[in-house]
């Protein structure tokens, strides 16, 4: 059976604990690279953060030289950048950005540009940002970030558990660092839209992690008490069970955004849509990745150190089980014969034999240990 059809049948068994050991290293490396890039290269910030002016002149035949002539009149041609574009309707647009951070002067230049291009004043888009405004935007973004982390951390610590909150936030920081690092390395311009997207990435990344962790917590409650499974084993099982949900959700989320990038951003030439969607796509992919390969292993690492799980491991070892084999085996009644030497062999996808074991495993919803399912109120038994 193909991997996809295995997954379609919930028979996938990716060896998450083994994989995540490698991915964590890769992630750490990437975070380091991003950090270095951020420090050495810095971000290419748009005028919105540093102050400056941008003019959009929608006129055929109005080109760079014409615009420069106008800017020269105001002695503001220095550092100006020009970009010629064509809209979906085939109209020519000239985008100019300059270092004019005086609002009144920006408006004046805009009017002069309109006059030079033979347009009404309102037809030329003028955006001027004063020097302190940009600093403000940056401060706001940082402030939002801090509040976000504090509030979400508190919420997750309350609804899930503190260690999960910590891991979830670590994953969020990971995603953000990599995204920002990506912008620093490739010197892609950061606009306010990008910042919105960065902040949205936080939300996504977290949303994903919460779904995964909620499931993990469920699994731990159901199987933890049996004492038959290490934390990593339970984690591997639950991650596999949520894998298709993550894949499906990501695909349905990315498709609209991809369409926004290709259709809106590139074909119809809307810079805002383009800025948004690029950052979102990077962030989304990172978000899914980090829920499975960053947040989860961190939780596993933290939890395996807890006395309770150390005990479980010790006991399993005494019984002769190989605790590094995290494959899911039904262990509720009979002790499983130990020494599964093939532990490391099942890294990638299970063989059909594996699949069978997995397929026979009881659903998470049924009770195995002494822990009954939570009673449901108002549930009519039919």
């Amino acid at each position: 059976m193909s991997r996809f059809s295995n997954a379609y049948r919930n028979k996938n068994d990716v060896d998450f604990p083994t994989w995540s050991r490698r991915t964590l290293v890769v992630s750490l490396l990437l975070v380091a690279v991003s950090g270095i890039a951020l420090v050495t290269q810095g971000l290419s910030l748009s005028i919105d953060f540093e102050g400056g002016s941008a003019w959009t002149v929608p006129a055929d035949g109005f080109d760079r030289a014409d615009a420069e002539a106008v800017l020269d009149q105001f002695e503001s041609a220095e550092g100006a950048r020009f970009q010629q574009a064509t809209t979906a309707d085939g109209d020519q647009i000239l985008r100019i950005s300059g270092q004019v951070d005086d609002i009144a002067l920006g408006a004046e230049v805009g009017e002069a540009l309109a006059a030079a291009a033979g347009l009404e004043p309102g037809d030329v888009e003028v955006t001027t940002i004063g020097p302190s405004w940009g600093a403000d935007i940056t401060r706001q973004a940082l402030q939002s970030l801090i509040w976000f982390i504090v509030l979400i951390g508190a919420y997750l610590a309350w609804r899930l558990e503190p260690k999960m909150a910590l891991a979830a936030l670590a994953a969020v920081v990971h995603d953000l660092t990599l995204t920002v690092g990506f912008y620093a390395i490739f010197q892609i311009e950061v606009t306010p839209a990008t910042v919105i997207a960065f902040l949205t990435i936080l939300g996504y990344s977290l949303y994903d992690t919460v779904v995964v962790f909620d499931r993990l917590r469920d699994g731990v409650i159901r199987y933890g008490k049996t004492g038959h499974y290490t934390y990593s084993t339970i984690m591997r099982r639950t991650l596999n069970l949520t894998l298709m949900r993550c894949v499906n959700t990501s695909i349905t989320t990315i498709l609209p955004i991809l369409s926004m990038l290709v259709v809106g951003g590139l074909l119809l030439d809307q810079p805002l849509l383009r800025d948004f969607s690029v950052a979102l796509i990077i962030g989304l992919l990172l978000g899914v990745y980090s829920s499975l390969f960053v947040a989860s292993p961190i939780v596993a690492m933290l939890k395996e150190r807890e006395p309770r799980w150390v005990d479980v491991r010790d006991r399993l070892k005494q019984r002769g089980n190989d605790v590094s084999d995290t494959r899911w085996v039904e262990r509720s009644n009979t002790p499983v014969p130990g020494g599964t030497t093939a532990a490391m062999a099942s890294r990638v996808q299970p063989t059909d034999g594996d699949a069978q074991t997995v397929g026979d495993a009881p659903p998470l919803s049924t009770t195995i240990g002494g822990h009954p399912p939570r009673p449901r109120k108002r549930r009519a038994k039919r």
Partner: protein
Amino acid sequence: MRKNPARTLIGTTLVVLTLLVVTIAMDRDPQLGLDLQGGISVNLQPVDDAGEVTTDVTTEQLDQAIEIIRRRVDAVGVAEPEVSRQGSTVTVQLPGAKDQQEVLELVGRTAQLEFRPVLQILPPIITGEVREEAEARVAELRGELGLPDGVTAEDVLTEEQNLQTEALGLDLDGGALEGLVPGPSGDEAELDMSPEGTDEEAAGIGGGRRSAALRGQDASDDDDAAQLPAETDGAFESPEPLNQFGIALDDERFIELFQLEAQLTSELTPLEDQTEDAEIVVPGEGGQVYRLGPRALTGEALEGATASLGEFGQWTVNPVFRPGPEGIDAFNAIAQQCYSGAPTCPALSDTSRGLLGIVLDGEVISAPSINVDSFSRDQIQISGSFTREDADALAVALRYGALPIALEAQQAETVSATLGAGALRAGIISGFIGLALAALYLFSYYRLLALVAVGSLAVSASFLWVIMSWLGATVTLAGVVGIVVSVGVTVDSAVVYFESLKERVLNGSSVRAGVDRAFDVAYATIVKANISSLIGAGVLYWLAVGPVRGFAFYLGAMTLLNLVATYVFVYPATAVIGRSRQGLHPRRLGIPLDEVAASPGARPTTADMGATS
């Protein structure tokens, strides 16, 4: 809900359809934001004397500044302007505006509070159809009276007065003028001294005179012309008209003509011409127009002002002036003139006291008569027919005037309507294409259940449309992006549920039993995840300005609606499908369980009980 999902489903569908139909039938739709319909937006922040941005301003000052900007913008006549404040940032959005320089000039000027003596109260300025009617009536009256072109009623009045004075030695000046212009109807307020210890007396005077002022106001509100002949009768004992046109000044037609001409010719002084020494004509509350003398003092002479409830239950405002020549002394100098009715501050009413106009940003906000000739700086009260709100507003304006804040544009943006429309279209087109792709994927994976996911999107979107329409919320491009992005979140709730169901069925539960159980587990997860999203959106909405806010609003709204839609639509719809004959064919729900489809009878529903208990 659990017992009868079909009913819930029908209920939800009906509610959504009804809301949609009502909204569309009432022709409500969301407003397009500035970036989509074109216009100008300016972000302003308070600056100190050195021109540096400061946050050292009170909310009250900012709100007053916003109020002033709003009035200016309204006066220019922009459709649906939006002036809002967040933190100490003031955002002005003028859809349809084109000239950025003009707008910057309009909103960036610091408003000043001035005290100017009232020279004359003119009838309201008329515009539009009423003006045309008035012009026609003027032509008619001039014809009847036989006035040649170029000679105004005022010319006739002046000539007549001069001639009468010459012939009879009569001084008609004061009387005639007073009779012909409407009474001081703006005289809602008066300025009294409230000396310490004699509050009672001061209040008594204020109270008594207030009723007189009120009478004046009542009489002159609507039909000035009708009132005038009676008032003027006393002033002219019908002397023979001496002017060359032979018009009697008490001729009703002449009075009407005089009124109308005055109304048609009075013009407001533009703000930039309202210099310190100029006589200015500015509007006041209730439509009156005031002609005011040169500036006597500015708001900077004030230290503060409070509103308080007087002894007789009337609201008064108590301004406090600064000590010294720039403060109370300057005020007393003009107060003295007004009290005695000097030509610089003439008496306009029967009280023979002059009025002192309090002008904020070129608008008379109050014009109390001065009833005491000398004030001590913290014992002044303005009384009148104030409601609590009136008094508070006046006190706030005075306090603001004492320390006006300068707002400076920090960011300005013009969006052209055509480019905005292009952006909107791009957003919508790409949104729909993306949606179609996502739906296609869902159908390939979840088959029949994809209908539920897509339906849930439709339900959320409909709710959102209805809410936006009724709130009059504005859709910005960032908002459109927020909506497109939230498609993922909405679909995810359904996916989490479907996966939970699928897992149960693959592990031996029937679809019938699985739908309920799976929902309980899945919904708990969905709530947790959505609340994290909501916290994020809330933080963004709370802290950010401009497009980020719009984005956060729609992301938050969609997340919240998603929670609702999942409960009232996704669950019942899935339950209906699951309990129908389709539920016996898990393959049709994207669940690859072959044997059930092959032999539907093999899994009696009682098996659920065995599996779950």
